[in-house]
């Protein structure tokens, strides 16, 4: 007895954007929380210790936000002018910030008044950071100098005046307490050693440097300036490794994500790009509402915080609820699955008598109807709203199967106004899809044949037929144009092939005709 074969649903290639592991990972964030700050958000820094508060520098204030709070848990307002670069010490106890009035202030995270004021710069201080031994502070200023300060007695230890323009970014090494790197608007990056009087390495970025980032291993340095992101090998004495140009405006901020496997760059063109750090290809792209000035990621990518020029701070938290739900359901199902699997991999002995138990086949609703030869109902089942919206390939597959059986006409006939309009709606929606066009064209023709006599009786159907006509017309226009393009391409391929003698590989068959034509048209082309 031949068993019923379920309808074969062809698998079509997916159109549109490819879903990769990265897109899944970076899309797994909740809707952003947006907080209005007092001015453009110039810097965001996450505390390295447990609750991972983050400091947001905007206008004349530095706000501390908790990991989930939407209100600042703490505010430092003792700035005379615009504050810059609020950064935490590695123990999360102290916070340092520069200011437009050239004074660098050091705060206790739990206090309010500045613990120390470092005076000495003559212009705005845009860069501040702690050295890895925790007792010194690095500052870089618009007066072209960078300085090291001693925290306990607020004294200046050393000054380096090597840059010839504003210093706008700098990082300290987390491994070596004497090493730090600064980037300046004079297009250079300089590596300094506090024990030496001069810079150790100088690298030319080619554009005013806006941001610097050291890899955790500290072998690689990433710099951003102009539209370029560049990666440098410090161990080879500052050899440029990679130059990336994926933004159309100045790149303002850099961050590392996914345990250092992904590099993020934020730019004034409103985008955040995620790069794979092995291939340096863009794997994901975020879009924001305004030009981005600052970007930071919480440890383990728990949240992405972005500060923009329109003084909005956008915080995206990672989704967790669904994961935990999945784990729960898996745990509950596991024992039953074990029971279900029980004896599956039992190997029968040679003298065992095998009693085969027919496996009950699960059939889809439309297949059940098809099995009963209820063609009309099978089509109805395939035309269910969610199915035709979400998986039009199933609906089309069923129509194709009906056509193969020669019963499509029966299935299509005998429908009332509502059902017919549903059917037509589906046809109108999908007839221009090249994957479905052959099947749907036949169906559409049959529909016209069957319902020819009643056309004009229902305004709804007439309207839909008109829509169908319109869409067909535009499609025909398009295809006419496309045919012209095809002709152009043929000619182009022909010239290139005759010149290069490139053998056809994958497209050879598709334009075999073109090749034939090419041989005839070659002399003319060469003349012209």
């Amino acid at each position, binding site marked *: 007895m031949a068993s019923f074969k379920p309808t074969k649903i062809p698998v079509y290639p997916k159109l549109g954007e490819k879903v990769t592991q990265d897109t899944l990972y970076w899309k797994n964030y909740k809707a952003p929380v947006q907080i209005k700050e007092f001015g453009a958000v110039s810097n965001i820094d996450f505390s390295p210790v447990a609750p991972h508060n983050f400091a947001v520098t905007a206008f004349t204030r530095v706000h501390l936000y908790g990991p989930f709070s939407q209100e600042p848990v703490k505010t430092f307002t003792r700035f005379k002018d615009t504050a810059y670069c609020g950064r935490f010490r590695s123990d999360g106890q102290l916070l340092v910030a520069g200011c437009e009035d050239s004074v660098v202030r050091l705060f206790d995270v739990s206090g309010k008044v500045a613990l120390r004021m470092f005076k000495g710069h003559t212009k705005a201080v845009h860069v501040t950071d702690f050295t890895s031994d925790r007792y010194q502070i690095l500052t870089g200023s618009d007066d072209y100098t960078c300085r090291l300060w001693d925290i306990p007695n607020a004294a200046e230890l050393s000054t380096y005046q090597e840059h010839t323009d504003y210093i706008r970014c700098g990082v300290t090494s987390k491994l070596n307490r004497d090493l730090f790197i600064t980037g300046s608007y004079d297009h250079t990056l300089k590596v300094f050693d506090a024990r030496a009087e001069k810079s150790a390495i100088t690298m030319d970025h080619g554009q005013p440097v806006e941001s610097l980032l050291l890899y955790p291993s500290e072998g690689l340095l990433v710099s951003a300036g102009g539209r370029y992101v560049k990666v440098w090998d410090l161990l080879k004495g500052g050899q440029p490794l990679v130059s990336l140009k994926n933004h*159309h405006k100045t790149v303002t901020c850099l961050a590392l994500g996914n345990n250092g496997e992904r590099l993020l760059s934020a730019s004034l063109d409103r985008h955040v790009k995620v790069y794979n750090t092995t291939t340096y290809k863009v794997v994901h792209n975020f879009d924001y509402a305004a030009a981005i000035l600052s970007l930071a990621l919480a440890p383990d990518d728990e949240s992405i915080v972005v500060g923009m020029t329109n003084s909005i701070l956008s915080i995206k938290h990672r989704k967790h609820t669904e994961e935990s739900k999945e784990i729960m359901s898996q745990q509950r199902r596991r024992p039953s699955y074990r029971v279900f699997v029980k004896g599956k991999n039992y190997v029968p002995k040679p003298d065992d008598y095998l009693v085969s138990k027919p496996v009950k086949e699960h059939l889809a609703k439309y297949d059940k109807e098809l099995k009963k030869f209820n063609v009309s109902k099978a089509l109805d089942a395939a035309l269910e709203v969610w199915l035709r919206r979400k998986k039009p390939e199933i609906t089309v597959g069923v129509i194709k199967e009906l056509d193969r059986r020669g019963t499509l006409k029966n299935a299509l006939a005998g429908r009332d106004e509502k059902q017919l309009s549903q059917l037509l709606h589906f046809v109108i929606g999908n007839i221009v899809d090249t994957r479905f066009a052959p099947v749907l064209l036949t169906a559409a023709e049959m529909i016209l044949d069957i319902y020819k*006599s009643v056309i004009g009786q229902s305004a709804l159907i007439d309207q839909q037929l008109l829509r169908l006509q319109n869409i067909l017309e535009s*499609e025909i226009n398009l295809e006419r144009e496309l045919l012209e393009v095809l002709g*152009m391409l043929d000619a182009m391929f022909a010239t290139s092939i005759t010149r290069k003698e490139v053998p056809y590989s994958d497209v050879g068959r598709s334009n075999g005709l073109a090749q034939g034509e090419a041989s005839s048209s070659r002399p003319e082309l060469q003349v012209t």
Partner: protein
Amino acid sequence: MATDGVSLSLKLPCVFSPKSRQYLAVCAQDGRLRVWNTDSKTLHQEYVPSAHLSATCTCVAWGPCRTVKEGPQRKKRKSEAAQVEEKADLLAMGTAAGTVLIYSTAKGSLHCTLDGGHSGGVNCVHWHPEDSLLYSGSDDTNIVEWDLQTGKTRSKWKADRAAVTSLCVSPDGKLLLSAGHVIKMWDLETKEVYRKFTGHSTAVTTLRFATTRPPDSNGLYFLSGAAHDRLLSVWQVREDGKDKNSVVSFTLTDEPQHVDLITSSSKEEAVRLAVVCKDGQLHLFEHFLNGPCKKPLSPSCSVQMSDTKESPMPIPLLAAALGADPQSVLLAYGNYLQPVMENAEINMAERHVCLARDLKTNLSLSMETTVSKVKTPIVNAKSKVLIPGLPGHKAPVVSAPQGTEKRKKDAGNKEMSIAERLGEIDLEASSSQKGAPKATASLQTDNYAVLLMQGLESKDANILNKVFQTRKEVEIKKTVARLPLPAVIPLVEELTTRLQGNPLVACMMVRWLKAVLVHHTSYLASLPDLVTQLGVLYHMIESRVKMFHKLTKLHGKLHLLTTQVAANDDRNAVSDVDHTAKLVYEEESSDEEEASGDEAFPNEDSDHWEEEEAMQEDEGDEEDEDPDSRTEPKANGDEDMEHENESEEE
């Protein structure tokens, strides 16, 4: 200082012209100077200072009236020939950039620019009543005396430790009041301090002389108002110099914004005062100034305005000017961009008066009439065009020597009549208007090459959508032609993905694709891996085009059907006559030629028609039931087909 700046900037200059009150000069929030005609209630002139956004106008003062027939450079002395009509002409505007602009309403253009005197913003300007002198006080604590005949500073002196916020010249032109930290009275001949008055804790915004009596007669009074102060203080200049405190004060509901008064020249004459406060109320006072009065005086009448809606909202008053008749007050109210002027009769007997006005209609009325007289600024060749964003830029200023040249030239042909001058203005205006569209055209872009590049580089969907929405063939061509070569392949890839889907969108993409192929043929053909680069595109197009044949056929079929239906509908709509003609055909049941010929005969009765309709309905019913009961699909289809053929032949 900062707070002073804010309060001053909030207070927009709004001044009536002296004497006849014919014009109201308002410098609104948008930085433009508008001169309104109070008689016709229309916009008389509009002037946009070239740096109106960076160096906003902080104060406006009308020059003394003069005969218009005189050349603009003549002394502004009161003409002895009183029969010649005197008109307010010159307006002095102080700007935040420290310059003073002199605008002529007769010429309708900038008369000259006075600069080089102040290093800070100008807070106040005041004309000398007789000589052609102008005084300005600035944030840089100095007072400058300008000679308008040369356009240069005549003298400049440090007036105070703080910014000079207000100035006033006495009616006889011998004394000058300045307000900074303290109010000082200067002798204008010697430029020495004559008296000092202290009392205000905030910046003094208003200074006015209340009487026209000489200073040594114990009868000279002046009044002062300050920011955030709800009192107007009156000071007496006493012979013995014991004038430490104010003698009288007037209470207001808010800080004074606009003060108008009619001075008294003798003890028996009362000073009439109209003060518009910041809250939009007008207070009228009448007082005999003859010595100190302990109690603050309350207004004899307060005027408010409201609209005529269900729940009335107050309309702010902007300025008020007292008329010669004690009852009548010229009011300006509404907003600064389009004030409404009205000569109101106010019943002084009542202490509070509320006037209800429908502002909407007034507004639209004045809107209609304004258009023709709007004046565009005349840009001469020497003025600089400023680009926003340049640090530290100032108002473009016509240098002083040039100003004098102009004056000399104008003075030379001073006998130019008004008609001639008007003609000149029109000519200049029209020429500047002609020049304008050219300039804008040159600024417009005709291609999106840069934008497209940016979009392709950062894969910004917004930018790409915007670019690809272009429908103009020329723009597409230019964009593609100017696209740098490295961007061509990314563009083709982007177009390939966008070609899938809706035919209407795809059609636009095809245009782009064609443009790319046409413009970059040689580049594309020279690519070594052309086939692999464009293979995807080729395949996609080919698979889509495969169904062209069938699609066209289906379209034709559908077209036939729908046009038939439409034709049927039309026939139904026209009249019943056609239906009867159709019936004729049914009866004869032969060929179509005859039927079409018979349609012309309207000789059939309607009974048959009804029968026919019933028949059709029956058939329809049958069809509806048929398919379910039938088992053989082929036969069903055939029958249907035959049936359709019949019905189509109808």
